[in-house]
């Protein structure tokens, strides 16, 4: 396969309490649809401190377990260490205009900043786009 590549940048705005987990799958699906990305990679990068994206199943019990795991990090440095440990960004492959990561896995924004308000997630779409 040899096709013309393009790269586009957009963003998602997510209102949070400052200590939460938010499933970004719907916004990701919508942004892929709007830009017409057919095949490639989508990368999610939260710009705010102490926010990061993990790829995992979004289920209340599991989110509680993740919180319990993060609570084992010393409180004073928890947000920075957690961000460094998991890395800020997450990438997903896109094929036929859909992310293809399996049934249960979703991009989940973890916000441990303690700051209530809107959080910006930069979205980089890379690949082959619909020309229409």
């Amino acid at each position: 396969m040899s096709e013309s590549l393009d790269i586009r940048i957009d963003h998602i705005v997510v209102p949070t309490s400052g200590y939460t987990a938010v499933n970004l799958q719907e916004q990701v699906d919508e942004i892929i649809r709007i830009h017409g990305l057919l095949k490639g990679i989508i990368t999610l990068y939260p710009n705010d401190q102490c926010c990061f994206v993990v790829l995992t199943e979004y289920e209340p019990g599991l989110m509680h377990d993740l919180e319990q795991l993060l609570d084992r990090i010393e409180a004073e440095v928890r947000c920075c260490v957690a961000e460094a440990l998991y890395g800020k960004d997450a990438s997903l492959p896109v094929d036929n205009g859909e992310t293809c990561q399996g049934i249960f896995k979703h991009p989940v924004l973890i916000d441990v900043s303690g700051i209530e308000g809107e959080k910006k997630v930069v979205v980089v779409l890379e690949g082959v786009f619909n020309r229409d």
Partner: protein
Amino acid sequence: MRVFSIEIEIITRGPMKYFDLTSVLHDIVSESGVKQGIVDIHAVGATPALVLIESEVLDHLDRFVKEYIPVTGWKHGNAYAHLRSALLGTHKRIPIINGEPLLGGNRLYFLETRPVHNHRRKIIFLVRGKESLTDENN
């Protein structure tokens, strides 16, 4: 610019079993014809992981993960598998220089964290870059 993608399948053989994908990675990069570029590797599913590490310290990583995220003590049924997968990650991005993935002494491993045998797992490789080391317009 060349774009090359391929999907392979792994048949799992139990929890925390590491599959060395280094030679597969080299073969795919070679097949792609890309000399300068990048390869993204994605493991499909919420419980596998991809690990880039020196083979000599793989056992140390394995012990750390098992100690930090034990099997029991969680709310979600197979939380340990999801938590291990989320921590280690299911995506790796590696530059390609002179037609070779830049591994710097590391090896690429696929890991299934759930106790599943004979389970099919997909891994997606996306390679893109220039086919020539010299032609800027390639």
